[in-house]
């Protein structure tokens, strides 16, 4: 089968890529603006295409715990939701991280807090990158900025999740999920059927029983386990940082933005350069691990950094940590489901960084 070009919504492209990745199961619950994922999957009859299981759960809580069960069997499983639903899933995500299980979680972020709005937002950055649930754990977080990446990151997220036995999240937003773009799909992969040696697939006579748990009441063993997790996260920081730069070679100022706001920022760079402002963009692709080293290096070159986020300023904290006081770092953002305009970005760059 050849690669295939289609015009699709981000959520649908994600769902199609899920089937093509040879995924074993999807468990979800409807919530705007990501309901197309479940709708597409049920319409496509993946049980006929690949034997994939698709189930609409009774709640987001049940869905993430179905993911736990399936992941514990070593299967390629995922769930998707949007912000309020992802909040509900946090307990399960913490258990999955604690049991060291691989899985994929898609968050098509909408504005909050509370029921908030159904418009796009990036106000779940802290929740996604700092833990979200209880305990010292991290997710691998990928931030797509196009419909193509909504599709491409499915396989990448599963690959990283299985490599590190860690949950991976694709942190998208309502704009990327809902907009249509052309997207190339990889050929259909077969479901692997491979038995993971640690998974609960039935205790055969040739091995000890496998237990999937996040519980250990012995504080010393629990600390050792936490140290093991931290070691894993350090390894991710060393090996898995992904980012993209635009026009940074001669840049005197830097924008840092991911997802939808990185697209706006690209236009802002163009507008700024037309006015003679030498500005570049760094777009983190992995939000955890964060491209701190690369931003720190750019801080030796540029005079100031503006982060552009659809939030009150969340990623800006990681940028400030990366820069460590070398140069000014400011934030510009819109909230409540509003996407900033390129004009606003240039204006804020001038006011907060260049003029400042």
């Amino acid at each position: 089968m050849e690669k295939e070009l289609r015009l699709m919504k981000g959520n649908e492209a994600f769902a199609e890529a899920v089937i093509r990745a040879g995924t074993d199961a999807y468990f979800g619950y409807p919530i705007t603006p990501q309901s197309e994922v479940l709708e597409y999957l049920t319409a496509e009859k993946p049980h006929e295409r690949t034997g994939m299981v698709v189930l609409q759960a009774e709640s987001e809580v049940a869905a993430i715990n179905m993911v736990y069960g399936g992941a514990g069997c070593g299967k390629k499983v995922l769930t998707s939701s949007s912000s309020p639903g992802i909040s509900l899933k946090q307990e399960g995500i913490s258990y999955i991280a604690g049991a060291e299980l691989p899985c994929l979680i898609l968050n098509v972020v909408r504005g909050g807090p509370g029921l908030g709005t159904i418009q796009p937002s990036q106000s779940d950055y802290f929740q996604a990158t700092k833990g979200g649930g209880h305990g010292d754990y991290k997710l691998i977080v990928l931030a797509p900025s196009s419909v193509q990446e909504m599709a491409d990151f499915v396989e990448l997220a599963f690959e990283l999740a299985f490599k590190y036995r860690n949950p991976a999240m694709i942190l998208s937003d309502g704009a990327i999920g809902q907009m249509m773009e052309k997207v190339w799909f990889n050929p259909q992969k077969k479901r692997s059927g491979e038995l993971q040696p640690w998974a609960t697939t039935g205790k055969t006579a040739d091995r000890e029983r496998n237990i999937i748990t996040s519980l250990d009441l012995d504080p010393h063993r629990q600390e050792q386990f936490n140290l093991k997790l931290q070691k894993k996260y350090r390894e991710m920081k060393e090996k898995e940082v992904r980012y993209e730069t635009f026009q940074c070679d001669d840049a005197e100022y830097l924008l840092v933005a991911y997802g939808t706001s990185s697209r706006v920022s690209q236009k802002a760079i163009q507008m700024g350069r037309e006015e003679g402002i030498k500005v570049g963009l760094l777009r983190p692709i992995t939000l955890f691990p964060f491209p701190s080293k690369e931003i720190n290096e750019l801080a030796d070159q540029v005079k100031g950094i503006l982060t552009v986020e659809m939030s009150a300023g969340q990623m800006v904290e990681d940028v400030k940590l990366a820069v460590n006081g070398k140069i000014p770092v400011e934030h510009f953002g819109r909230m409540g489901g509003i996407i900033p305009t390129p004009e606003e970005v240039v204006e804020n760059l001038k006011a907060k960084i260049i003029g400042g």
Partner: protein
Amino acid sequence: MADTISTKQIIKPENLVHKKSAVMTDTTMHYCPGCGHGTTHQILAEVIEELGIQENTIGITPVGCSVFMYNYLNIDMQEAAHGRAPALATAIKRLMPDKYVFTYQGDGDLAAIGTAETIHSCNRGENILIIFINNGIYGMTGGQMAPTTIVGMKSSTTPYGRDVSLMGNPLKMTDIVATLPGTYYVTRQSVHKPGNVRKMKKAIHKAFEYQKKKKGTCFIEVVSNCPSGWRMTPVESNKWMEENMLPFYPLGDFKVPEE
């Protein structure tokens, strides 16, 4: 002459009639003396052994006293978040339909925090076995009121007895799930007397056989004791259970297949 056979002569492998199941590990269980959890674990292990399904059985443990069940049964197991065992079981069974999947849950886990997962997995008719231990109390956390605590029963959060006007009514989950179309076999058992243990064993046998035939959800409630939580000796607790719990939670089948 025949009457004078010695104990030593009887204790021979060929005369063995009952011993701890080989599906149980050697780990000493952490349960309090006389607790029905241990008895139920043994019965379950015996049935798994008798059916020869050790290699194909996956169990889900709850949060509660039986959280460490995976230390005692020599099978693959997953430990669920509080109340979520049926969600795990749903996924496991759907991904591996030829395995035998069971959950083992207490009353707080199944009938309070996990009510939605219980009802919906039963209503979908997931081909799983749910074993529900009802001792009317949260044992692990120190004996607080459970959804199944009977009226007047004392617990650490109903120190003067459960008062319906303050705490509401005890919940009969087994009666509820029996009304759902997805359940195939629903029964309430106990394990406090030898006859009840034998019946319980038959019930688990049936449930696994129905699961093999993909008939739908099987649900077995076990009315059990909590000597420590009830502040009684094990023998007293079983007597109290018979006199007080069983009139409210009568034993017997709620839903049996027409065969």
